[in-house]
């Protein structure tokens, strides 16, 4: 009994560390035929060159005013997340059809929206103008292209609610519900 208790505690502790400290949230996505192993996703390496971007690249999130409370770390992360997701969804639109890539991209979509939500929550402390600053920041040309690609992927069944499991981002729920039951239009090998 004691051994079972200790093993259980080790199991729970290791998973908590894996999820919260190491940030391997992809390990906890639903399995199934549509989802593969996120660590084996080829799209990750294929998009490395996309990260070579100029600091002033205006197609990425950029602050247009000096009167803001956005921390530089948050701005940097918003730009990195946008760069990556744009590459995964827009530059390589068929990448999501491969199951390892899908697992990785679904996890990345969760990170993208959770960062946006986190920044909006911080902005709420400062009032309406700061919320507008954050929303404007996340409305760069590449963010808009990502939104369009997400709608496209949901409407064509390439992304469904079951891919996200319990972690479906609030912003994606309406579009996933709207196109429920669609079979994906991925090119068959």
């Amino acid at each position, binding site marked *: *009994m*004691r051994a079972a*208790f200790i093993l259980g*505690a080790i199991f729970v502790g290791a998973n908590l560390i894996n999820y919260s400290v190491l940030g391997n949230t992809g390990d906890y996505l639903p399995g199934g035929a549509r989802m593969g192993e996120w660590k084996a996703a080829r799209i990750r390496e294929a998009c490395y060159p996309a990260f070579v971007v100029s600091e002033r690249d205006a197609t990425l999130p950029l602050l247009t005013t*000096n*009167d*803001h*409370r*956005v*921390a*530089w*770390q948050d701005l940097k992360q918003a730009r990195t997340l946008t760069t990556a997701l744009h590459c995964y969804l827009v530059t390589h639109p068929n990448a999501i059809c491969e199951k390892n890539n899908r697992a990785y991209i679904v996890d990345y979509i969760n990170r993208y929206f959770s960062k946006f939500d986190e920044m909006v929550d911080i902005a709420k*402390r400062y009032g309406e103008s700061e919320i507008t600053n954050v929303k404007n920041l996340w409305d760069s040309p590449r963010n808009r292209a990502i939104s369009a690609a997400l709608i496209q992927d949901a409407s064509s069944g390439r992304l469904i609610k079951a891919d996200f499991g319990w972690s479906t981002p609030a912003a994606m729920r309406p579009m996933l519900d709207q196109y429920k039951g669609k079979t994906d239009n991925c090119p068959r090998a």
Partner: protein
Amino acid sequence: MSELLSLIRAPAIAFIGGFLVIGGWIYAPQLSGLLPGFSSGTSSTSPSASSGGSWFADANRLGRPETAPVLRSCIARMLDLGRGEKVEPGVVYSMLKAGSMQASISALAGKSNMWSGNQTVMLAASWGELASCIYAQDDRELCDADNRAAMVEATTKFFTFAKQTETSKPPISGRDAQVLSNFGDRLSNALRNHRRYGTLIAADYGSFAPPEIARIMREEKQTRDICKR
């Protein structure tokens, strides 16, 4: 059944005890705000605020120093930036913090040579300059939670590093000591004024404030609240 209970009793007690300590520390500001007569010192003239504040700062009193608006002008002044030259003040602030962390670790490790002594003087002077610059702004700037957090951090770091230089081997030069002493006098006056204005209270500095700050927060009394509109 009794075996299972005895097995989980000790971890359960440990868990609840840990939750009470950690949770109490985190949530006490909110809880104390809910209880009449145990109110923490907000910028208003509550009894605890005027007596130096409670153990816990109000959860909203201190913001994020990296995004403090006062940093924009103060960092530009510290770096002596010309027109058109732009740096992200939050980045410079983070670098200053990172340097301070390294120096603190060196001090803990007992590393006290010429290089680390000079570095401590430089860090004390940098934090002192930043705190003095924040103090030179309008007094009401410290009604902003981010600006207040920057002032609290800058003054705490200044007094901590200034104290470290007193024991450094070899001793710092007389000129450096004079510079730090001037900063110290100026910042002590600043803290006294802000304590009286209610813009800074003891709870903002927590339980581990440098003795100089703790003394000022204890001795001075709040006479008005400049943040109240």
